[in-house]
Structure formats: structure tokens, C-alpha cells
């Protein structure tokens, strides 16, 4: 099957001091697909996904070489603020803003960027995005209360709603369920399946079953190298590299 690419990584190399965390990786991510990046801890998967929306800028010690093409531009050379707006990110631990209500949290991207909206626009953005993540019915009664009283799973969905509200083209998920219980995890996984219709999703996971359940493509990273990248089906049924096979079988075993 031929797919449109949304992001193309070419010869990406990321290092901290003399330490190479990502070693010359090239791969393309496809539109309206879920791509899982997996690998043992320390393989560089989080570093890779953070580079995709320039989060590595926050730590000056990261040095990045190569290019990441998005929308015909190398995003490593674009304004990080514009990049982050189009490529949203959700983190391991749910982190709703404690000073804002649920309502304000959904609108946080607009509030933070100083974008003025009318009351109607605000209401509709909040409604649409809370509905998308299935929170609308659960929180509609106390939408103006702080988000911190929600359960972990609800908080994480609120964070996804907050990111979706900015209408990103790519959604990055960095182990989005690692802090959640199985039930909340299932909800998020179902949500990911729904969301890929409108946004391309790239997620990091250390949970192999999760990768097999939700992703269309899987990339396996090991010690900063991209060992294997293919459709999830191929990776999980006929892995080409021995290391991939070992990783999968050890975890399955």
C-alpha cells in the first residue's frame, strides 16, 4: 500500500556532549497512520520523538544534525513555536495545568499564545475537543473546576484534548499510558484508533502489546540505531533482524 508521508527524517543524529543518543537515523512517517517507536530503555526513542517537535531545544546540551522535513520545510530550521503548534505532544505523565479549569485547559494553547477568541468560539472548541476524547459527558457538570480532581486517565485525555484543540497535523505521544491503569489504557488506545482519521500519530511505547494493538507501523530502535522499520504486521510476524526478534520474544516470553 502506498501512503503519503507526513514527516521525513534524514540522517538524524542527536548527541549530548560526546554521547550519541540517536545515530544517523532516516525514516518516513505516514499520514493518518499510527506509528509506534519501541525499544528497550536507553534506545533513544524518547529523544527521537522529542526532536520531532523541537522539545530538545529546552535542553541546550542536545546537539542535533540532519534534517526532519515537514510540509516541505526542515523543521529543525523553522521557528520552534510554529513547529510545536502543528506537531502536538502528549507526555508520559498527565500534566494538566493546575492553575486552569478543565475548560481553560482545553483552551490552554490559545490562552498561552495570546490568541483572542469569542465566547462562542471558545465554547465550541472546548465542546468539540472534549467530545473527541470522550470526556464531554464525564466532566460537563464541572467544566469550570480545576482539572486536578480528575482521575489519571481523564487527565491524560484532557491533555490530548488540549493538544488536539490546536488542530495539529501530527500528534506525538510519549508513552501516554505508562502512568495509567489497564482500563484507562484501553480507553486511550481506542481513542488513538479514532483519532488517526484526522491526525497522524507517532507514539513511543515500551509496551510491545500496545504497539501491536494500536499501530500500523512500528520502528524498533536499539542503542540509538534504527534496527527495523516496517508495517506492524511484518515486524511482529516476520522480523528481519535478530535483535528485533529477541526483543519481541523476550518480552512475550
Amino acid at each position: 500500500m502506498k501512503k503519503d508521508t507526513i514527516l521525513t527524517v534524514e540522517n538524524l543524529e542527536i548527541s549530548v556532549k560526546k554521547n550519541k543518543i540517536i545515530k544517523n537515523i532516516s525514516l518516513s512517517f505516514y499520514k493518518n497512520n499510527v506509528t509506534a517507536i519501541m525499544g528497550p530503555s536507553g534506545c533513544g526513542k524518547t529523544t527521537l520523538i522529542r526532536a520531532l517537535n523541537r522539545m530538545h531545544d529546552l535542553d541546550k546540551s542536545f546537539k542535533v544534525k540532519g534534517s526532519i522535513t515537514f510540509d516541505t520545510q526542515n523543521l529543525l530550521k523553522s521557528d520552534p513555536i510554529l513547529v510545536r503548534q502543528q506537531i502536538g505532544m502528549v507526555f508520559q505523565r498527565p500534566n494538566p495545568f493546575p492553575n486552569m479549569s478543565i475548560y481553560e485547559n482545553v483552551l490552554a494553547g490559545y490562552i498561552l499564545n495570546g490568541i483572542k477568541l469569542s465566547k462562542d468560539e471558545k465554547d465550541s472548541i472546548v465542546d468539540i475537543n472534549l467530545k473527541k476524547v470522550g470526556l464531554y459527558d464525564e466532566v460537563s457538570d464541572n467544566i469550570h473546576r480545576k482539572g486536578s480532581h480528575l482521575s489519571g486517565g481523564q487527565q491524560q485525555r484532557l491533555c490530548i484534548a488540549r493538544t488536539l484543540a490546536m488542530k495539529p497535523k501530527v500528534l506525538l505521544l510519549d508513552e501516554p499510558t505508562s502512568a495509567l491503569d489497564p482500563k484507562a489504557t484501553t480507553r486511550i488506545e481506542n481513542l488513538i484508533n479514532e483519532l488517526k482519521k484526522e491526525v497522524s500519530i507517532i507514539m513511543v511505547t515500551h509496551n510491545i502489546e500496545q504497539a501491536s494493538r494500536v499501530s500500523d507501523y512500528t520502528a524498533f530502535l536499539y542503542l540509538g540505531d534504527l534496527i527495523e522499520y516496517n508495517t506492524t504486521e511484518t515486524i511482529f510476524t516476520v522480523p528481519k533482524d535478530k535483535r528485533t526478534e529477541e526483543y519481541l520474544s523476550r518480552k512475550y516470553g
Partner: protein
Amino acid sequence: MIKIPIAKKNKLFINILKLTGYVAIAILVLFLITLIFNSFLSIKTLSLQFLFNTNWQPNTKNFGAAPFIIGTLLTSVLALMISIPFSLSISIYIGYFLKNKKRKNTLETLMDLLAGIPSVIYGFWGLMVLVPVIIKIQAWLGIIPYGVGILAASLILALMIIPYSVTLGKDIINLVPNDLVEAAIGLGATPYEVIKHIAIPYSLSGLFAGHLMAFGRAISETMAVTMVIGNRNFIPTSIMDPANTLASVIANEFGEASDPLYVSSLIELGLILLVITTIINIIGKLIVKAYTIEPR
């Protein structure tokens, strides 16, 4: 895609933040320059002799800091000695015995109250209530009943500085690792023995730092002391004597001093006071810092 208004404020904000970092340094530097520059006349005219001259007679332009340095040390040392039994007791009581008990709130509130009463009110109360009592005692002892003097100042000061030593002291004692305490208890030690052989030795430097900083506090305290010390510019011969401290003589005379040398020598007293307290604070902080970093 949503259009974001370009925020020019960002760069400005970062520059303002960096600027305020420099402003803080500049304030301190200006402070020091102001004091040094304005003490210059006194330093030049009176030289080092200023520190040892035991006379302070503004009328004859004879200025010596010795009575005030001695007055300050005497008052503060006495205050510290009076305060130690109390501050150590409370530190141990809160930090060891009442660790997780509700009752410690009573004592902590007591400390907050003592620390919160303004200095001028301590002074006023001292003048109105404590000094008359001292007068009676002095009369009964058959010595000149000044009332005001080093004793009155030290008693008030002791009360004022206890909360300062306790703030650090109780935390330091609380930091004593529980496994050490439990090991000692397991060997059959009584709480007294645990405190004497484990807790106190372990927290000695921290307790010292706490009391050192309280001592610095006593040295720099102005109003309460000014109001009860009697403001006499001689070297005190006993703790019953009226005297003056570095801070109290400034508070008392700076407003009326007009002769340039007089003003300058008062500012030099301030500079001496600043140097002493800053050294004490730095030593105290270094000890505390070493303490918290030191692996157990």
C-alpha cells in the same frame, strides 16, 4: 493552521529578567559603596585608632568605637547564653520527642509569636514592665538602680533570638537518620542517651550554625536594645551598667549628628556592624550548606 500573534514581549521579558539579576547585585554594591564612601572621612581622620579608642565624646570630636563594640559583644553573648538552654530544649523537644505529634504545633506557634512581635514593642514592654522590676531587684541588692542596661537588653534579646536558633535547630535534629536512632534504642539506650550520644553529636555543627546566626541577629538588633540599654557611651564594667551597642548608638545619635566627622564615624560604626553580621551569616550558611550536602 492557527495564526499566532508574534510575541515581541518574549525577548523583552527575558532581557528584563537578566537585568533584574544585575539590579540585585547593584543594590548590594551601592549599599557597600555608600557606607564605605561615607565612612571615609572617619576612616581617614581616626584611622585604626577608632576601633580601640575608648572615648566617645562628640563635643570634643573624640570618637572611639570601643565602648560600643564591647557593649555589643557583652549584650549579645549574654543574650545568647541566656537563650541557649531554652533554644536547645525546644529544638530537641520538637525535633526529637514531638517529631510527628500534633502538640508540636503549640510550641511552633509560640515560636512564631515570639518571632512576630515587632522589635519596638519588645522595647516598649521592656521599658515599661521589665525595667521597673530590674530597678527593684537592683535596689534590693544595694546597687545603683538604673534598671536600664546590659542585663535588661540581654533578657529581651534572648527572648527575641530564641525562635531564630530553634528554626534551624529543630530541623537539624529532625534530620538525624532514624536508623541510627533505632539502632541505639535497639541496643537499650534511653532517649537521653540517644540524644546525648547520637543526636547531639550528629547535629552539632548545625546547632552551632543556628545559634551563630541567632547571635548575629542579636548583634544587629536595634530598637529593643536602644530602648532598654540606657544609652551610655562608656565601657560597661558590669552587666548592670547602662551602655550602648553599635546599633543603638546609631539609632540614638544619627538623627542629631550634624558635624561631618560625627556623621561619618557613626556610619563607620554601621559599616563595622555590617561586616561583623555578614561574616557571621556567611559562616553560618556555609556550615548549614556543608551539613545538608554531607552524606549521612
